[in-house]
Each structure stands twice: as structure tokens, then as C-alpha cells.
């Protein structure tokens, strides 16, 4: 495929540009996603967990599974110990 640079100057790494179909297609909900209420509830829980940092271990597990599937993984307790250790060495500033 040829490298194409779209007119507006975006897309430095684009190898191909396709025109939008404009046919109104959108992702459909799968049966296993549940109805509107279930999806809304699950979305809210995910956002709250993400905000409070409760999903950090799950994300770590996902990351290890896809990036280093054959290496041993930290347990939840070990993970949090390491996370707190790292936070102590790299404090993030809070604003006024």
C-alpha cells in the first residue's frame, strides 16, 4: 500500500486512508452484554473502580498475560506492595 498524507496534515504514520462510508454503521451490543440497565450498571462500576484505582491489579494481570505470558505473575498482595513501593519512590504531586 502507498503512504498517503491526508490534506489536513494529520496522520504521519498513516499507510492508507479510506473515505468514511457515512452509512450510520455502529457497534452492536452482543447478547452477552445484557440489556441497557445491565450495561449502564457495569459501565458505572467500571468507571468508579477505575477512578478509585480498584482495577489496577486486574489491569496488571491483563498486561502480564498479553505481554509476558510465560513469566510468573505477582499475587494481588505482592502487586500492591510493589505498587506502594513504587509510589513511595515516585510521588505524584497533588494540586492546590
Amino acid at each position: 500500500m502507498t503512504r498517503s498524507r491526508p490534506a489536513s496534515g494529520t496522520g504521519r504514520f498513516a499507510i492508507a486512508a479510506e473515505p468514511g462510508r457515512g452509512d450510520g454503521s455502529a457497534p452492536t451490543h452482543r447478547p452477552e452484554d445484557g440489556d441497557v440497565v445491565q450495561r449502564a450498571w457495569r459501565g458505572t462500576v467500571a468507571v468508579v473502580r477505575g477512578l478509585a484505582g480498584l482495577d489496577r491489579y486486574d489491569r496488571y494481570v491483563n498486561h502480564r498475560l498479553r505481554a509476558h505470558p510465560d513469566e510468573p505473575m505477582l499475587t494481588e498482595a505482592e502487586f500492591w506492595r510493589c505498587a506502594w513501593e513504587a509510589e513511595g519512590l515516585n510521588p505524584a504531586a497533588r494540586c492546590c
Partner: protein
Amino acid sequence: MSATRDAGQKLKTDPSLPPVAVIEPPGISTGQKILFTALGIVGAIAWYFIATLRGEQVSAVWFVLAAVCTYLIFLRFYAKLIERRIHRPDDTRATPAEEFANGRDFEPTNRAVLFGHHFAAIAGAGPLVGPVLAAQMGYLPGTIWIIVGVVLAGAVQDYMVLHLSIRRNGRSLGQMARDELGTVGGWFAIVGVLTIMIILIAVLAIVIIGALASSPWGVFSIAMTIPIAFLMGLYMRYLRPGKVGEASVIGVVLLVLAIAGGSLVNTHPVLAQIFTLTPVQLAYAIAIYGFLAAILPVWLLLAPRDYLSTFMKVGTIVFLALAILVVRPVMSMPAVTHFALDGTGPAFAGNLFPFLFITIACGALSGFHSLISSGTTPKMIQKESQARIIGYGGMLTESFVAISALITAAVIDQHLYFGMNAPLGLTGGTPATAAAYTNGLHLVTGAGASLPDASPDLFAQAAAGVGEKTIISRTGGAPTLAFGMAHILSQIPVVGAAKAFWYHFAVMFEALFILTTVDAGTRVARFMLSDSLANIPGWRKFRDPSWRPGAWICTALVVLGWGSIVVMGVTDPLGGINMLFPLFGIANQLLAAIALTVVFVVVMKKGLFRWAWIPALPLLWDLFITMWASWQKIFSANPSLGYWALNAAARAAKTKGAQTFSTAKSPHEIDMVIRNTAVQGTLSILYAVLVLIVFVIGVAIAVRAVRRGGLPDAEAEGVPSRIFAPAGFVPTALEKEVLAEWQAADINPYGDDRLPGMHHASQQETIQEENEL
């Protein structure tokens, strides 16, 4: 051809993956035209009423409407202009979060979650305290500056710094300053950041001391947060390892019990005695606490309290906004008070120009945000095009918090507001003297008539209503905000019955995140200090973060720095907040000047001279107004304004052997005035000089860029992106189309199951890079 152009373009970086970026079709859809026309009309009506309504019935609803409509219009059009003309976000390029994904600090994060994270990191006590103090000039000047300032300055700064950092591997402001301004400019920027951080911690500590002094209820609840955090920490580490959610629930329940239990302490004869502390005792307590908290392991205190404060912060802010909409309080403060024009206000001295603009920093323009926008958020953002909603939009949300705080202060009875915010030297501290003081202020109603005199009972009853011994001279803004919040909430049926509980809930809410800022700020400043010390030949050992003596020495030095300013502030005979808050505002605004200089230089280096006015406008305004304020603080001959004029006057009084001077009641207090003003004056000069040097270096580089038609900048090379996510909260038609393609290919567009594709930054490298600032 026109039909395909209308639907926009989809860009691919990998033939085996669906598109990773979209180029939206030009123009505005009909739906958007209708929406923004409606917002424009509603906003204009709201502004019209704010500008013209006077009298007793100016409803807070107009402020909320004017703010929200202005925000949305500027987010859609002005931020979009910045996006199109300057940033030109490239979603085919991986963000640092994607490129360096390591499952920890670098990790693409859902945009709604990241928005919350970013907001929680930028919003603290600042947007609550500044507007409360500025309310002494009336509601109008503060409202205009908060709304106009944020859309043209504050949000622009946050957005541009965020974009800059995304393009530079998530580097921090200090590192970017060094890259773009050279070593000298970078070093001045870093010294500026370190000193500004010290004053920031100190002023926040003074704010919370103002709320806790001689308040057994408040001191008990705050003190209880320490054992609660310990308990949570031990629970998460040993009892039920890693169960952060369970510990948070336990913590929140205990916290509410601690606030409620405070009322028992308050009425208990012995316990009330124990928990009644003077400001000086509290200053030492906070300094000791700050030192211990910064050297204790994170899991024991900082991490658990962080979970508590995130819940408290977001929850309380949403609660306050809803309460304002439900109660629809009317303004008690007039649009403009005479303090705006004669500069004799008790909360802080000086005229509207320039002092309003440094008093309200967070909420309109806050330099400190540039430290969050660079460094933390770029490591979590999925797509470059999301920076607009997160950087610009996040700051708009903070501005909304500032408007809520301004409303909260402006609905309080004026006698109570001024009685709370005037220093002890003016109010005398008793209901009778306070009433006499506020009656002598010539307060007027919104309609311009004289305000009826207050009786001493007003102050006594107000204090009893919120479960405090006194509310007189509770300066610093936090008690006023808590009082205003309790006042608004008490007008809601059922909820309002517990007015005293709400007052202490609000105090606790502010104290929690101020303590977190004190603790985290001390840690950050400690690392900055030890990194700087490590550059001294023979002191390399300081670079090793696990070398305990080095950590203790640097922590002690940092705590000594801010601790001495806190002690100075609480013992200041002239009122610490009154003297130090301007310095805090100046420091914050000068940090903004450093950040905007870096942004401006990069725009010039890129050769975008036609659009350089976008960062230049807030930069020049900020520099002008802050230098004006600094000039007055340094050179004014008026002792109520100039630090050195006051210093000279106090010296003159001392040589004459005077026993009292202004509100200083003894020769010892006169000595304190001389010492404090010298420190404050020196700091004012230091900040101004540091920032001017950075600015001059920046202008020199900009001039060179104009001569050569642009210069190379330090933008990272970048790698192709392999994930897709919508730019805004709601996907556009074209984005939905792309999401559908990902779904059809059965690949997770957010990359949660595929990352990382490319590079790995080792943990060691990450730590090293972050420690550099």
C-alpha cells in the same frame, strides 16, 4: 467525490488492523448548530442578568447557567481552534501511554476514568479558597475573571501543556523547560518550581489551621483520619492483602463516624479540652505530621488516605453543585463592594487590579496544573485528540468548582462573611467587638441601601448553629466555605437538619486533601531537592532514593522550609493569610508564566507565528498582572500593600521605642512583623526575578525562531498507534463506524488485550526519568 468527503476519512497504520484514526468531515452538523445557538442564547441571557440585576433577588442559577454555557461554547469552538491550528493531533501516532505501556504508570486508560483522575489531581483546596477570599470585592469581579480567565487562559495552559507532554514521552514541565529553553532556563524553572511548591504547602497548611484552631470537633475528626488510614493500610497489607475496595468502604464508614463523633467530643468537658489546640500548636503538629507522613511507607498513610480523599472530593463537589441547583440561593453580597475600589478589604489588601487576579488562581489560571498535565496524565491518555476534552475540559470543571465556591461565599450574610475573614486584630475576637467592627464597614445591600447593623447575637448564634465556639476571624477561606455549604444544605428538608454535621463534613473534606497535598508535596519536593544536591561533587549518594539518611535530611529540610513559613503565618500579628495569600497567588501565577513561556516557545519554534497569540495572550496578561502585583508588594509605599514599606514602618516604630504598631501589640510582635515582612519581601523578589529570567530566555528563543522561520524542537519521534478510541465522551458517527469495524474484526480497539506493541521502558528508567521532576 463530495459525498465521500462529507463522511470524513479513516486512517490505518497496519493493514491487518482496522483504522486507528479518523479525520472528521469539515463543517458543523445541523444538530450542533441548533445546540450551540441555544447555548449561546441562554448564556447571553444569563450574563445579561448577572450584569444588570441588582437588589435582593440575584439568584445563583444565573451564575451556573452563564458558566456552563460559556464553557461549552469555548470547548467546542476555541479549544477546537487550538486543536486545528496549533496542536493538529495525530491519532495515527501512539501516545506515551500506548508506546510505553507497562501495566502500571504507563497504561492507556478509559477517557471517562482519566478525566476523573485528571480532575481529582488538579482540583484541591485552591479553587475553593481563592474565590471565597475574592468574594470580599463582591460577586461580579470574581465571576467574570473565573469564567473569562478559564476559557482564555487556564484551560488553554492545561490543554497546551498536556499536548506538549504527550508529544514528549510524558516528560514533566521541568524537563520540557530544559529541553526547549536550554540548561540555564531549565534550571531557573526547576528552582522556581521547588520554591513555589514550598510556599504552596505552607499556605495550604495555614488555611487548614484556620479551620481547626480552637475547634475540638474539627481537630478530633481530622486526628481520627490518621488511625483510620493506619487501620486501612494494615488491613490492605496484612489482614486482607490487596483488598483495596473493602478497606475503602471501612474507611469511609469510619470517617463519617469520626465526623459524627466529633459532636460528642465537642460537648465533653475533658475531651473538648484535650482537642482544643492553638494555631501555634497546630502549626507544629502539622510540621511533625508532614515529616513523618513523608518518610513513612506509602501504604501506611498516603495510599489509604488517597482512596478516602478521592471519594470525598468528587462526592462533595457534586453534592455542592446539586445543592446549589436545588436550593437556588440568592446573593447576599452586592455585585461590587467598595473594597474592590479602595483596596482596604480585610481578607486581603489591594485593589481589584491586580490583586483579584492573583487571589483567584486555581479556577481561572493555575500554574500548578502544568505539573499534572505534564508527567501524569500523558502516561494514561489513549489518543492525542482526547487532550482537548481532558486538558481543556478538566480545567473547565475545576472552574465550575470555583464558581460554586464563589456562590457559596456570596450567599452568606455579609456581617458574618466579614467577621469570619477579618484578622483577629480587627475583629477583637468577641461577638460584641466583631459586630462593632462589621457595623463600621459601611456594608450595603445588593440594591445599594445601607445594610442594617448586626447585633453580637448574630455571631454567637451562627457559631452555635455549626457547633463551634466562635466563628469570628476564622480566616483562610476554608471555614467560610464550610459555613456557606452548611448554610445552603440547611435549607434542604431532612438533609438540612444536621447543619453542624455538614459544617464539619466540609472542614474534613478540605482538610483531607490539604493534608494529602502537604504529604505528597513534601515527598515531591524532597526528591527534587535530593536530585539537585546530587549534582554537587561528592554528594552523588543523594541520588539513591533508598539511602535513608539522605531521604530524612532532605525531608527535614523541606519541612523546615514550609514549616517555618507556617509558624510565621500563624503567629503573624497582621494575620498570616492576609500577608501570605498574595504570595501564594503570585507564586502560582508565575509558575503559569513559566509553563506558558515553554508552550509559547514551542509554538514559535514550530513556525506557527500566526497562531502564537493563543498562548501569548494568557502569557502576557498573566505576566503583566502578576508583575504588577509583585511590583506593588515589593515597591509600594503603602504599608498595607508593600512588604518592604511595612518592614520600614515597623523598623521606624521599633527605633522610636513604640510599644504597639498597627495590630502588633508588643515590641516582640513588632520584631515579628519586621522579620516576616523581610521574608515575604525577599520571596516576592526571588519569584519575580526567576520568572523574568525564564521569560527573557523564552523571548530570545522566540525571536531567533522568527528570524530563521522556525527552529527544531524536542518533539519525540513517535511510533504508529495500534489502538482506537473516540476523542470525546460520545463517539461521532465516523468514530462509531470505526468501532463497528473493530467489532467486526473481533479485536478490542482499546488494546487492552494486545498492548504493548512496541517498546518497553524498564522500571528503572521510568523511576529515573520521573525523579528528574
